[in-house]
């Protein structure tokens, strides 16, 4: 299989898995949760976000992902029929498609967060907190800390190689992008650690800690994956093998996004919320 065919296969898999398979699973998971916690039994879950809005949102999300999948299949078809342009243009076309996919996903996550923030919590009169300070570093296990440091060093090494062998400008641009995304990860993790996320206030203290640990580990995980990805791109750039990049980038995006979706599907509401709080006649919050 030559590199162009490999890229087209990976692009096709990207369309099928990220725009068809996972949205279908996500939608089924959401629908399953709505059926498990109906408004008749759990009215407080739907105060700021009625169940009709949920179904409308899921239908809209499914339609958008189908439209993106159709667009992706048209692009793959056109590229296989007309042949691939030079590597840089191929990467631009692929990245533009990934931006559309990610935008749709970001919209879904944002809407889900908005709906969670609208949960009725004001009838809970007892608020509980731990008398223990939390820091980003304390929430991170030693292997994660080592992984972050090693990945940063590896990334710095390959960016330096890129700067020496190809272009300082390209190396700096990639360094700035890496720093910006890493900074955003740290900023978000720190926000969760400080408890500065509205939805955390509906959680039990132990669930709050689980969420914080997961959020910090996800941030560290993202930084490691980003550094390794940038290292690979810098390595192939420095060795003058730009023609390998479309296949590598499409493979990396497919693996990374699948991993993100898979991890999201493992998270369940029951892990974080005392669902009895949202029942019609709940006094769970008042009793604690």
């Amino acid at each position, binding site marked *: 299989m030559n590199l162009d065919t490999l890229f087209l296969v990976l692009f096709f898999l990207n369309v099928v898995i990220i725009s068809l398979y996972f949205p279908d699973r996500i939608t089924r998971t959401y629908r399953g949760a709505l059926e498990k916690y109906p408004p008749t039994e759990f009215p407080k879950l739907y105060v700021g976000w009625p169940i009709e809005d949920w179904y409308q949102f899921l239908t809209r999300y499914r339609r958008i992902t189908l439209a993106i999948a159709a667009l992706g299949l048209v692009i793959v078809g056109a590229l296989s029929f007309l042949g691939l342009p030079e590597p840089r243009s191929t990467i631009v076309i692929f990245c533009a498609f990934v931006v559309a996919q990610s935008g749709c996903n970001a919209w879904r996550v944002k809407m889900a967060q908005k709906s969670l923030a609208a949960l009725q919590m004001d009838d809970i009169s007892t608020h509980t*907190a731990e*008398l223990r*300070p939390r820091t980003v570093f304390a929430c991170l296990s030693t292997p994660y800390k080592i992984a972050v440091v090693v990945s940063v060093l590896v990334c710095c090494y390959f960016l330096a190689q890129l700067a020496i062998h190809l272009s300082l400008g390209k190396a700096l641009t990639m360094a700035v992008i890496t720093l910006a995304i890493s900074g955003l990860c740290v900023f978000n993790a720190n926000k969760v650690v400080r*408890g*500065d996320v509205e939805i955390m*206030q509906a959680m039990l203290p132990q669930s709050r800690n689980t969420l914080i640990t997961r959020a910090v580990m996800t941030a560290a995980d993202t930084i490691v994956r980003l550094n390794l990805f940038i290292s690979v791109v810098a390595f192939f750039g420095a060795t003058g093998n730009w023609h390998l990049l479309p296949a590598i980038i499409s493979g990396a995006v497919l693996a990374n996004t699948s991993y993100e979706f898979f991890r999201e599907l493992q998270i369940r509401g029951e892990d974080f919320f005392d669902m009895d709080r949202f029942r019609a006649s709940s006094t769970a919050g008042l009793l604690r």
Partner: protein
Amino acid sequence: MEVSIDIDSDIPPFAQLVKKIRAAVESGELAPNAPLPSIRQLANDLRLNHNTVAKAYRKLEKERIVETKSYRGTFVHRDALANCATDASATAEAKLARLISKLRLDGLSDSELRSAFSNALKVT
């Protein structure tokens, strides 16, 4: 160690927080020099205004039950347990009671005492 605040209680949240931290120190759940959460973290977790938690910390700091070490955060005071025994409010009440008895002996009525107390508060 957890702390709970009942926002529907007649006792103000800041007073509840002071009481809970003081009780935790007295019971030994919070050891001397133990770190306490930042104002922001505690306020977010308890869904309280940051100023409410800051006020509670300030009161505990005045009573030398907690201490703030510049940028390192807030810690339980090394002499917190001993300082807990000295209840500032109870001490103030006892001193005022002694003063009021003395002033009554001097012939002042309750309304004159109230007025004098109110004026003195305004002046200081």
